[in-house]
Every structure is written in structure tokens, then in C-alpha cells.
């Protein structure tokens, strides 16, 4: 089948996920201990002889290890950041060895709520411990050790992924030469936590959630996940973009005076919600939104973000998008400010884009030119 697939020249092509197993117990920030764990990852390009060209791609809320290329058995399932990663693309796999991971607590093969709890022989479900950005970074660091990567040429992430890049720069300063933090924030605002809480409540109050042990009941809290994703989608886009994409257009031209799907935007949201509810784990969604809520490096430094970044030695690139109101440009400016106070090398671009928070996944020419210029100046 794979032979029939036309692979673009700038694609990394057919890739296979890999699994790293760690049998040493991992103590999480909460104090809980995972007896061992597995991380799924993919790699693109080749590690050079001096091991100086490795780039870590940190996933956002619903991201995972399949960031580029296609799988032989699913040729339509292109990686989530395929427009960025590949030969000749801004993150050029002819120069860099790129690694993308599925984090702890994920639902794409890494140890998470769907995995078997060795103590019970049943899926962890809601008993899977709450994981933080710092825990993810600790697990990623063990993967780096395993792969012989002492120092990343760069770590890049958007949104929640950007938080992982920041956390690396603070907790493992000698292991990161460049941190690329896209559409992110130094901590969530109350409004942002509130959106996460509504999403979680949608899931938790779904009768099919069964307190997080829905696997045992052979069901899924589809309605809750669907609502959570619909809400997310609204906040990841801008008012302008939704007006442009859907406006007030009706699907069938006239009002039916019903509560069926009449407006195009309703149809879009339901489609996105259904698609997500069928492919994502509800417990993972709870864990990932909580990791977002908890991220606050300044909290451990007396509320002073500049003090939090004091250990960092990396060079930084910050990028924000003009219509991103969930991770607004002003939030990236807070990070820039804290880095300048520490005298760090930092560049910052605020990209004009109509696509809101989702812009970081798109291939806006200015955005990609910024990333390309930055990556091109990284020595390997």
C-alpha cells in the first residue's frame, strides 16, 4: 500500500513510532510515584556525530508524537506539525535530528490513564496521577538520556508545548541551547483556567464518565468530550476568523425554528467535537488541562518571573499572534520582559494573523520565515 502513496519532496516520508520503556520509578511533583512508564516518540532526520543537532518538539494540549510525515498504515494521517518539519522546511531535517514525544498521561501509546495499573491489573482511568509540565519535562529528560542527547540544539513548542520549552530552560539549563516558545504564557489567567474548568465539568458530569472508570463500563463520555472540544475550538479561534469562515450563514438557506443544526458554525463545531470525542481520551483531557492550570514557574520564585528564569542560559525566541486572545501577545511580552531582565538573548515576533490561537499550527509566511531565520542561525 505504501508504494502507492505520493510523498512530497519536503516530507519526512513514512515514519514509525518508537517506544522507550523506563523501569525506574518516577516521583511526580504531586509526590505520587509511577513505578515505571513508557514514552512513545518519533524521530526525523539523523543525529550527527557530535550529537549537537537534536531538536525536541513538545506537544500542545491534544498533540502527540506523530508530528511529521505519515504512517505506512495510515497515509492520510499526516503529522500535526508537518508544515514545519521536513527536508527544506523551517525545521529542516537535513540539518536537525528532530524528536517528538507523546507525554506521560497521554492517550497515544505513552503511559497514561488507558494503560494498565500494575497494582490492580486494570486501566488506571481516573486513578492515574495528576502530571505537571515539570513531570513531562523530567520524563523527556530521561528519554534524552536514553538517546544520548546531553544538550538539545533547540526545544520548540506552541501553547502548552511552549511551557515545556520554558520549563526545560529553567530546570535543565545546561541541556538547552535554544528555546522557541510559541503562542504561550508564563501562567494561565483566571479566565483561561475558567475555560479549562468548564471543559472538565462537561466531561466529569457526563453520566458515561463513571468517575473516570468508563473503560470498565465499555463506554465513553462522548458528550462531555465533545462539549469540551467545542468550547476549546471557540477559544482557539478569533471572532474575525469565525465571522469570515461561517458568518451567520445557514446550512439550508432558511430558518427552521428549531434547535437542530441550522447555522454553519454549529455544524462545524459539532463535527470537530464528534471527531475529537471519538479519538481522544477524556482522562487525558482532564490531566492536560490541569497541567496547563498548574504551570506557573514564578510561583516557585516568590511570584517573580524574572527570578524564575534566573537559572536559564538558553537563547530564546518568542512568537505570538495578533488575534490570539487565549494566549495573547501581552503574555509573550511578559516572558520577553523576564528574559531581558536576566540579560538573556531573546527575539520576539508578533505575527499579524486572523486565525487566533490556532495560528501556531498554520504556515503563515511571516511566521514560518521567522522560525526559519531563527533555526538557520543555530549552529550544529
Amino acid at each position, binding site marked *: 500500500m505504501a508504494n502507492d502513496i505520493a510523498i512530497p519532496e519536503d516530507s519526512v516520508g513514512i515514519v514509525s513510532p518508537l517506544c522507550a520503556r523506563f523501569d525506574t520509578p518516577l516521583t511526580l511533583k504531586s509526590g505520587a510515584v509511577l513505578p515505571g512508564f513508557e514514552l512513545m516518540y518519533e524521530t526525523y532526520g539523523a543525529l550527527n556525530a557530535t550529537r549537537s543537532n537534536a531538536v525536541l518538539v513538545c506537544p500542545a494540549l491534544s498533540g502527540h508524537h506523530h508530528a511529521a510525515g505519515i504512517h505506512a498504515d495510515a497515509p492520510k494521517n499526516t503529522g500535526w506539525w508537518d508544515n514545519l518539519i521536513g527536508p527544506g522546511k523551517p525545521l529542516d531535517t537535513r540539518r536537525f535530528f528532530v524528536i517528538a514525544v507523546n507525554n506521560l498521561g497521554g492517550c497515544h501509546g505513552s503511559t497514561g490513564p488507558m494503560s494498565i495499573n500494575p497494582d490492580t491489573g486494570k486501566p488506571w482511568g481516573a486513578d492515574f496521577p495528576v502530571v505537571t509540565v515539570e513531570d513531562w519535562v523530567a520524563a523527556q529528560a530521561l528519554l534524552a538520556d536514553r538517546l544520548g542527547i546531553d544538550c538539545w540544539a533547540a526545544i520548540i513548542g506552541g501553547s502548552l508545548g511552549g511551557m515545556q520549552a520554558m520549563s526545560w530552560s529553567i530546570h535543565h539549563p545546561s541541556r538547552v541551547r535554544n528555546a522557541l516558545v510559541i503562542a504561550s504564557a508564563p501562567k494561565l489567567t483566571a479566565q483561561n483556567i475558567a475555560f479549562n474548568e468548564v471543559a472538565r465539568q462537561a466531561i466529569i458530569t457526563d453520566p458515561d464518565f463513571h468517575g473516570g472508570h468508563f473503560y470498565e463500563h465499555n463506554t465513553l463520555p462522548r458528550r462531555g468530550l465533545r462539549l469540551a472540544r467545542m468550547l476549546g475550538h471557540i477559544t482557539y479561534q478569533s471572532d474575525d476568523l469565525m465571522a469570515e469562515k461561517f458568518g451567520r450563514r445557514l446550512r439550508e438557506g432558511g430558518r427552521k425554528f428549531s434547535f437542530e443544526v441550522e447555522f454553519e458554525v454549529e455544524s462545524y463545531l459539532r463535527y470537530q467535537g464528534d471527531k475529537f470525542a471519538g479519538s481522544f481520551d477524556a482522562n487525558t483531557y482532564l490531566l492536560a488541562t490541569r497541567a496547563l492550570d498548574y504551570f506557573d514557574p514564578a510561583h516557585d520564585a516568590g511570584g517573580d518571573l524574572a527570578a524564575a528564569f534566573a537559572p536559564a542560559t538558553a537563547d530564546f525566541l518568542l512568537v505570538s499572534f495578533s488575534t490570539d486572545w487565549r494566549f495573547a501577545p501581552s503574555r509573550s511580552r511578559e516572558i520577553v520582559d523576564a528574559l531581558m531582565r536576566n540579560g538573556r538573548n*531573546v527575539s520576539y*515576533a*508578533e505575527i499579524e494573523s486572523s486565525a487566533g490561537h490556532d495560528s501556531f499550527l498554520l504556515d503563515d509566511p511571516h511566521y514560518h520565515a521567522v522560525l526559519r531565520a531563527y533555526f538557520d542561525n543555530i549552529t550544529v
Partner: protein
Amino acid sequence: MTALDGRIDYDVIAGWVSPGARVLDLGCGDGALLRHLQESRGATGYGVEIDIDRVIAGMKNGINVLQIDLEKGLYDFVDQSFDLVIISNALQTLHRTEKLLTEMLRVGREAVVSFPNFAYWKHRVAIMEGHMPVSDRLPYQWYDTPNVRFFTIADFEALCEKLGIAIRERLVLDDAGQPVQDEPNFLGSFALYRLGGARG
């Protein structure tokens, strides 16, 4: 930037930068000046630029570039956090002149300002002949110029006086890039200043 910008202006500014100085370059364009200061004086710091294409050019040049709108001020830069704040051939493109000059000396111990002299004799001739001046230093038509403030050496010095800004050094250049001693406001087409706070 005009054909006359380049090494002469840059070398003058470089001479005002102490080795290893921390520099903020406002309106840094493609970053050529900041790169020159890094290479010739071991300076470190940041360029500020509003135009995304120039931000990208600055990154290609290997400098730190921050895409910030100077019209909104330097509000998130810490007091006295730079040795030198430079605005090279860009002050005339910004509206809030007084605010910016004051802010530059809040953020930096010293400031460098360079600008084209509107009262240069060739510009006066153009006005006498009934037209807005177009020259190597003012290379735009009135309808496409990025400049929004039109001022002279005499005007600038009067504003410094008003704001309590001390002029520590001044260099005025003619069209050929040669220093002008006599009648600078008439014979000079470009001026560079090293400024400090009045009591600095």
C-alpha cells in the same frame, strides 16, 4: 536608510559605545548597526523594530530583535537597564517625540539620536522653489514618506533644552559624509548626538 548611511554613521556611533556595552537600538531596521556594534565593540543588546520583514532580516543578521511598536512607548523596559539607547535615523518616523526621548534616557544611561536635517541648504532651496525636498537624506516624495516629524538641528536642540536633556557630543555631516564645522544647520544634512540626562 539612504546610500549615505553605513560605515560613517556607524563608526561615529561605534566610537560612542564603550566596549561590552549593553545597547538598545530603536528602529533597528535589518540590524546592521547593532551587528556592527557587536562585532566592533563587543556590545550586547536588542534591536526594536515594528516591521515584520525587517524583524526577519534582523534575525537573519543574528541580532536579538523585538517586534514592538515604539509609539506605545518603552513601558516594559526597566529604568537604567541599558548603557546606551540608540535611535538611528528613525526619530523622524515616530509621532511621540518628546515621550520617546524622555523614555530613552529613563531606560538608558545615555542616548544616541541621529536624524536628517530638514534645514539643510538644498532642502531650503527646494522649498524656495515651491517643492518639498527630496534628497539622499530625505529620499521620499511627500506622499510616500515614512517621516511624520520634520525638524532641524536648531529645533532638536531647542527640544533637548526644554526637556532638560544634555547634549554631550554632536557631529554634523554633509552630503558627502564629511564633518561640518560652520553653519551646521545650513550646511549639514545629517546630525548625530550623544545625549545624557541633565544631571547625568
